[in-house]
């Protein structure tokens, strides 16, 4: 059994494929590719594969991680090409390699997004204000009910720029098995902080990273 790690893009219309649907979609993609996928050996054999992180519905990504097993060794490029030949529109494998690190090494993810508005100047000022504030409290739904969380300490702003009709932000947020924050939390906090009308657009996961900011591999 050969362990393989694929990195894939999920863009365009593919962003409307939910995480649950993505599972089914990959299963069928594997079958169409006719790659020698390794099946579990239990009572109900099924191909073994797993996604490192779930991606929210409506988000694009250029760095999704998919681990799976093969019955025989094949050149990585061949695996990539065979899958790409049968992938849905908007999804493309960019890299196939061995599984170097454990999934638990994932600590954060980089996101970028645009906030489209007619009042870019005012919005830009508000976003900067929010970023500079000592705490950013949001209400997070947990199994035990609604909890107030301060996302500020875990949030690292990489850039915040004013475009023609939007404010463009990129940031690191915690990801992985422990804490998972999603840019919508920040966007919700912004909505609460201002009455300026804006629309979030092009939310995209750019990179999956380890604690030392190195790219998860």
């Amino acid at each position: 059994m050969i362990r393989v790690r694929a990195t894939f893009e999920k863009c365009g219309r593919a962003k409307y494929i939910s995480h649950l649907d993505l599972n089914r979609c990959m299963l069928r993609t594997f079958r169409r590719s006719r790659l020698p996928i390794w099946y579990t050996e239990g009572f109900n054999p099924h191909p073994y594969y797993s996604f490192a992180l779930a991606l929210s519905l409506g988000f694009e990504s250029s760095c999704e991680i998919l681990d799976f097993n093969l019955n025989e060794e094949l050149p990585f490029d061949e695996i990539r090409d065979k899958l790409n030949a049968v992938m849905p529109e908007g999804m493309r494998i960019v890299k196939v390699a061995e599984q170097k690190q454990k999934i638990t090494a994932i600590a954060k993810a980089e996101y970028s997004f645009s906030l489209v508005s007619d009042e870019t100047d005012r919005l830009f000022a508000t976003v900067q204000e929010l970023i500079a504030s000592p705490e950013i409290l949001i209400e997070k739904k947990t199994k035990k009910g609604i909890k107030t969380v301060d996302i500020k300490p875990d949030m690292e702003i990489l850039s915040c720029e004013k475009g023609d009709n939007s404010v463009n932000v990129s940031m690191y947020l915690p990801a992985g098995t422990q804490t998972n924050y999603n840019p919508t939390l920040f966007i919700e906090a912004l909505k609460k902080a201002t009455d300026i009308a804006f629309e979030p657009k092009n939310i995209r996961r750019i990179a999956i990273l380890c604690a030392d900011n190195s790219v998860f591999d």
Partner: protein
Amino acid sequence: MLKDKIEKHLLEVQKPSRYIGGEVGSIIKDKSKIDVRFAFCFPDTYDIGMSHLGMKILYSLTNERENYWCERCFAPGEDFEAVMRENDIPLYALESLDPIKDFDFIGFTMQYELSYTNVINMLDLAGIPVFAKDRTAELTQIVIAGGPCVCNPEPLADFFDIFVLGEGEEVNLELMDLYAEMKKQGASRMDFLRKAAQIEGVYVPQFYSFTYKSDGTIEKLNASEGAPEVIRKRIIRDMDSSYYPKNFVVPFTEIVQDRASVEVLRGCIRGCRFCQAGFIYRPFREKHADTVVDQTKCLCENTGYDEVSLASLSTSDHSEIDPMLTKLLDYTVSEKINLSLPSLRVDNFSESLLEKIKRVRKSGLTFAAEGGTQRLRDVINKNVSEEEIMNTCRIAFEGGYSSVKLYFMMGLPTETDEDIVGIAELANRIIDLFYSIENRPKGRGVQISISCATFVPKPFTPFQFEPQDTREMIEHKQKLLLDSVKTKKVKVSYHNPDVSMLEVILAKGDRRLCKAVYTAWKMGCKFDSWEEYFHFDKWMEAFKECGIDTSFYANRRFEYDEILSWDHLDYLVSKEFLIRENKTAHQSKTTPNCRLRCSGCGVNKKVGRECF
């Protein structure tokens, strides 16, 4: 662009991937090179419509033609419809995301009477005039329909330009060819409809008018514009050479029938007298076992589905069922594909095959007994004996099943209280059987689920003349059944009789009902087949407003010599045969299946060859 408008709101609605296309297997063409654009519309949501096999066949078949483009279109869910109406997004097709009002053909498949209001709603949402008479004189926007419900299309006649009777594989292309040619010549809509009416299987309702007698029954049908007096349905003669898709559109979101599906045969030899499908899809034609196996492999490889089901009215009536299943199982087991076998009778298989099937069958066991006593089962020609039911249950119990689901109909012709009590008694005997089996599943009790539908007499069946039970009669029978069931091992569930009543009115109705269908939609009726959207009171109000006596359609016996609103449509089965079968039913006599003996339904004469 419409795409941007759609995407702006897509994340506000449930299961957005239903509204944006881009699925694997969907066909994209360059529209500048297309002569005819066809929007294949299913009058229900994506989840249901995408499960429909007919659409898959006609979609692929049309798209094989380089210069024709067939796209899919479904009814949006309530949330997305609100978004569409609020933001001026007209109903669009999923491949190009272009509005369907700009298409040459807008084709609906009519599978169920309770989807009629959805058709009107979809036309309205598309910005296409709902009534055929209000559409442009130019040759564009031809609204057509096919499917089982068009065997009596009169309650929809005002909304459609064309009804296509029977199987669409050939006639759809003939219509599109004619359209392409006439479009080039600059013909008008009327020119096209006049010519189209000459194609076999094409019914142009506006060329026909009815006059009625003072008692409300039909006096006469008048054909005009040179349209034929009788329109005959189309059939495919050879199933092996007939087109079958090599690929399906594979949806992202889970749909009702989320698997590859291979059609095994068309028609049915059984002749159950209540079953419309059993008569309107005649003659019986089957694919060779090898064709079925080849098509299964091809579809599974191209779609990536790990489940395949065999589609037909009665798969076990295939003449090569045993070798076919053996070959199929060889393939599916080695490829780890799940083979599901609906409509299968397990009584006529070899032991070894039964073993193999048992391994793949994991769903519950259901049995359509339909009637509670042998007498009633004879009346409806459901040729299932109690011995067979018991035998199948025994096999199931010995194989580890401990629950059985039984389907019945209530309100069947000649039905008495005795037949209703018979349902409970049959359930009791199955319970007794369970406890008499030595190696029955241990640790669990037996569970019998009885599901009761209300009988709906349908056109082109021997019971087309029959009245439906009134609400009071059905309620009495329901109560009687509940009182007869004395154990918790038996669970009884009913279909809503109001739904069945609306069904029969629309199924047997005539052209005067169009107004009521429109009025009901105006009052807010849509998705009538969805329990949460079904508003019987609104429908009754609509009928009242249009001066329609519902009992005239639902609870009246139609006379043998009465002109019925579907008499001018020829579904190959003769009316004389249906009358004969109706009389035989009232004598509680059965008719053997077509393979045992030809009963002279008239199909073979019209087709010009023997069925077997």
